[in-house]
Each structure stands twice: as structure tokens, then as C-alpha cells.
């Protein structure tokens, strides 16, 4: 059992070391997305390349939704009437589709990363 201790300790250190520099979040651009009637507004969102951005996703529906994107490597459950925060980037220019996992036929959108 004692041999296991370093693995856990390294993990915790790993988290806290990297947490410190990321606390300067003031400069991160913020973009808002709304979910209404199982649709994303806007369904096409342009963000700058090579920049970390903060997405504020408001679920205006009474039902839950999961914001998911394979291309962005993100997934987040947002319950009805609540908001969720998801950081994405820095990304290279291109199109990154996302969808609502609970309503994948209607809740579709794309993040378009435009060159600086």
C-alpha cells in the first residue's frame, strides 16, 4: 500500500501546481450561448484562434441538456433553467461542431475559430 502513495501525491501536486497560474482569468474573453426549445442560439459562434475562451451556456429550457463536442473534447450537463461554464481553446482555425446530447437531432451548433 505504501508504494501507492506517490501516485496520488503526484496527481494532487499536478492539480495544484497548475491551478495557481490559471487563477488569472480576468483577460479570458467570454462568449454566451443560449439553449431554447432544444436549439442553440447562436448556433454558429466565432472565436479567435490560439486564445482560451470562456463559454457561458444558459439553459432556458425547463429540461436538462448536455453540451457535448468530440472535436472540442468537452461534455457538461446543464440542468433546466441553469447556466454552465465551459472553457475551450486555445484552438487552431477551423470548425468545431457541438451538440446537445439529450436532443441531438435539434440541438446542433458550431464553434468557428477564425485566424487572428
Amino acid at each position, binding site marked *: 500500500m505504501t508504494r501507492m502513495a506517490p501516485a496520488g501525491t503526484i496527481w494532487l501536486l499536478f492539480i495544484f501546481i*497548475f491551478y495557481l497560474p490559471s487563477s488569472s482569468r480576468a483577460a479570458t474573453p467570454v462568449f454566451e450561448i443560449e439553449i431554447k426549445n432544444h436549439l442553440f442560439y447562436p448556433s454558429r459562434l466565432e472565436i479567435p484562434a490560439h486564445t482560451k475562451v470562456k463559454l457561458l451556456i444558459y439553459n432556458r429550457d425547463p429540461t436538462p441538456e448536455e453540451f457535448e463536442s468530440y*472535436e472540442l473534447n468537452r461534455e457538461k450537463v446543464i440542468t433546466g433553467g441553469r447556466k454552465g461554464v465551459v*472553457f475551450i*481553446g486555445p484552438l487552431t482555425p477551423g470548425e468545431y461542431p457541438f451538440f446537445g446530447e439529450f*436532443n441531438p437531432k435539434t440541438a446542433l451548433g458550431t464553434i468557428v475559430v477564425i485566424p487572428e
Partner: protein
Amino acid sequence: MLLTSVIIVLREVLEAALMISILLAMTRKLQRDHRWISLGLTLGLVGAFLHASVISTVSEWFDDAGQEVTNASMQIAIYLLLLAINASLARGGRSGFWINLATSVVVALSIAREGFEIVIYLSGFAHNPENINRVLTGAALGMGVGFSIGALFYYSLLALSYRYALILSSLLLTLVGAGMCSQATMLLMQVDWLPSQIPLWDSSGWVSENSLTGHRRHRRRHHRSRHRATTQRSPPPATGRLCPWAG
């Protein structure tokens, strides 16, 4: 609606079903008390409902990072417990209170983690009588398929000899553990607790994550086409640590 429900439930059930089938086969081979797994299953189901009922509040913790921090903590806990289980396997798999408890807690955490999403999804249809039947049918089908795959896996492991069953179980638990670390890393990057960088490589041309194989790999081993520097650093040490034969 029916198909969406099947896919969502199957995706959540599959990962827990595979892990529990490995632990169950291991318990059987080592002639340990299987009631610990039953205890884990019960606690996990209670945990899934509890987790779902408080998720709105929990999500607002730590500047809206609560959901990710809670999930990542559960995944890291599963990883550490799998590490202890694998270490006990490397020493001959002798039974003991702590290892039985670790198995029980791993089962409970994985069900609470995966089950909560099913509860949340189904709760969205609670006041929608038009669709509830189709959604519940889909959920039942998804669970049925997930459990069947788990059962198939369990009996396949039991069919192997004692030695090979334990080696394979250990290797698979190692992969599951590495996947947990990988996904915990992704969640912490998602809320900016870990830094995110430009992807180091893109393997989306090999296995699309939209395909069935991609879904399965994504869930089982958390295959990600675009690996970032942070994600890439995490799984190899986790794998090395967990697998007793990897040194």
C-alpha cells in the same frame, strides 16, 4: 427519441457494466465474498439519485466548476482504488477487509457517476407523457444491451484459466484506471483548473469518435482524437503505476 434514449443509456451503462464484470469475475476467481459488490451496487444506485438531485447546487460550487471537480474527484478516487486492487492482485490476490471495501467503493462510485446522467436525462421527460413510454423503452433496451455485454465479458473472463483471467483483469483495470485519469484531466481543463494547449496530434482519421467503435473506445479507454499536452502526460504514468507487470 427511442434511438437517442438507447444510445445515451447504453453509453453510460457500458463503462460501469464492463468494469463491474471484470471485478465480479475477479471476485469469483479469487473466491472472495461477492456480497461486497452487491453492497457497492446498492450504494451506487442510491448515490446516482443523490448525485442527480443535488447536481444543480453542486454545479455552482467553485465558481461553476463544481460538477467537473466532483466528477474528477470520483474518477481519481476510482483510479487510486483500482491501484490498490491491482496491487493486491500482484501479491496473489489474498482477500482482506480493505480490498473488499475498495472493490465495493469502486463499484458504488462508478454507478453513481454513470447512473446520475441517466437519472438526469430521464428526469427531463417526467412531465412529458407523450414521449415517456418511448424514452423508457429505449432506456430499458440500452440497459439490456449494456448488461448483456457485461455478462458476456464476465463469462468470457471466467472461461479463462485462473492465471490468465487475473492477468487480463489486471490489464483491463489498468486501462480503465488510465481512462479515469485521462477523463479527470479533461474535466479539470474544461473548468480551467488545468491549462489547455494546442493539440499535439490528431488521430481522428483513424477512428471517428462518432462511429460505434469510437463511442466504445471513447467510453472505455477515453480515446480522444485530439490529445493535448496535459492529457497526453497523464495516462502513461497511470498505466505504469497500475499494472503490476509493467514495472
